[in-house]
């Protein structure tokens, strides 16, 4: 076998093996998400899919909402039940079956730059602080219509160091679950 042919064969075989490996990884990556989606289906029924139709917008208001009824909180990224926030709701807000759901709160991740510090003159290194906020869109579970939207602010990222010899990043945490639960009043 000539050198060129041998190289081509090795490259093709490696690519086929890598593709198999990659799709295996993607399958495994998706297992917890699929489980969470199934959980959403059990609790919310087909209402869990309402979030896929939400058109995101620039939310600046921080309004309270007076909404009666049971709520389903969905991670809009993958349509799964956002258990961390769902579990924080008071018992009277927790639906036991899809028929009881009156509202769907779709939560979208929103990462934004909280602040930047420069080191050196001229600036050689940077410290960038990111906050992880959640955009919440409350939908009527029956009609899918948007009732209101709200931006839940994540915690502040930790402070930048006084000095540094490399560029660094700092991330805040997602909004605390009780803050989301408290929003419904």
């Amino acid at each position: 076998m000539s050198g060129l042919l041998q190289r081509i064969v090795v490259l093709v075989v490696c690519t086929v093996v890598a593709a198999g490996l990659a799709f295996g990884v993607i399958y495994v990556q998706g297992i917890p998400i699929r489980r969470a989606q199934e959980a959403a289906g059990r609790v919310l029924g087909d209402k869990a899919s309402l979030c896929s139709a939400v058109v995101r917008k620039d939310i600046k208001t921080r309004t309270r909402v007076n909404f009666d009824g049971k709520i389903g909180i969905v991670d809009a990224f993958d349509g799964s039940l956002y258990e961390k926030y769902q579990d924080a709701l008071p018992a009277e807000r927790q639906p036991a079956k899809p028929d009881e759901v009156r509202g769907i709160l779709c939560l979208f991740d929103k990462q934004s730059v909280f602040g930047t510090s420069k080191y050196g003159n001229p600036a050689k290194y940077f410290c960038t602080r990111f906050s992880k906020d959640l955009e919440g869109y409350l939908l009527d579970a029956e009609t899918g219509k948007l009732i209101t939207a709200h931006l839940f602010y994540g915690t502040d990222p930790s402070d930048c160091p006084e000095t540094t010899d490399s560029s660094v990043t700092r991330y805040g945490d997602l909004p605390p679950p009780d803050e989301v639960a408290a929003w419904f009043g």
Partner: protein
Amino acid sequence: MQAANPTFTGTASATSAPFATAHIAEFSSRKKTGMLRALGILALIAGEAALIVGIASPYFRDSQARIGSIVIGASAALIGLVFFEAGQRYRQVFVRLFAEGFAITRDHKETSVRWPDVTTIYQAVTKNYYNGVYTGTTYNYTLHTRDGKKHVFNNTIKNIADLGNALQNGVTNALLPGVMQAFNSGQSVQFGPVAVSPLSLSKGPQQVDWINIDKVSVDKGYLKVWERGKRRATFSAPVKAIPNLLVCLEIIDRRVGLSDPKAKRAK
């Protein structure tokens, strides 16, 4: 004056038939490159997999993780390719020297070359220094055979300096009679940029008659020719560009003598 090719008009092309005599020396590459190829293939597969995951997975929550997977995957795949290619190029090699020629074994396949079948041998020997401290010598010997094949021997082979000397001697012994015959019959013999004729030594338009040559030396990788009464070399040529260097130096030595010790050592 007619120019002649400085090669011996021997018979046949490189042959894979074994030589009649037993081998007199054996050389092998420094390390097994199978490990390098295996590492390269592993890195290539892992890198490609990470790249595909980065591109195709719908489960990345933020773009930074996706970009990270793509960048790391592409880098690993590239490194894998480089390792694999290095392993391919420098596969385990055995060189056996015989009185009649040499045999190269690569991937269990042996090719033998008779000395008369070598048309040219180039050598490039470079001493390396880092901040004035000697860090080693790089050897590269390139042989061309009558059938158009090229054989390269470099530092991947253990004791390359000894192998290089043996190759130079074998090729020179085979080529010298034919070249001397051409030279003695009045022909000009070309060694890359340098031409040797019964009357003079020249490089392109720069020509020095033998009777006017003060000295010829090999210094820092250059063949230098001094004319009588001149403080600076009349011309110089890089040794690595001169095919069959030892044949060339032999003719010069026989014509004017190589007084310079470095040139004598090279010869």
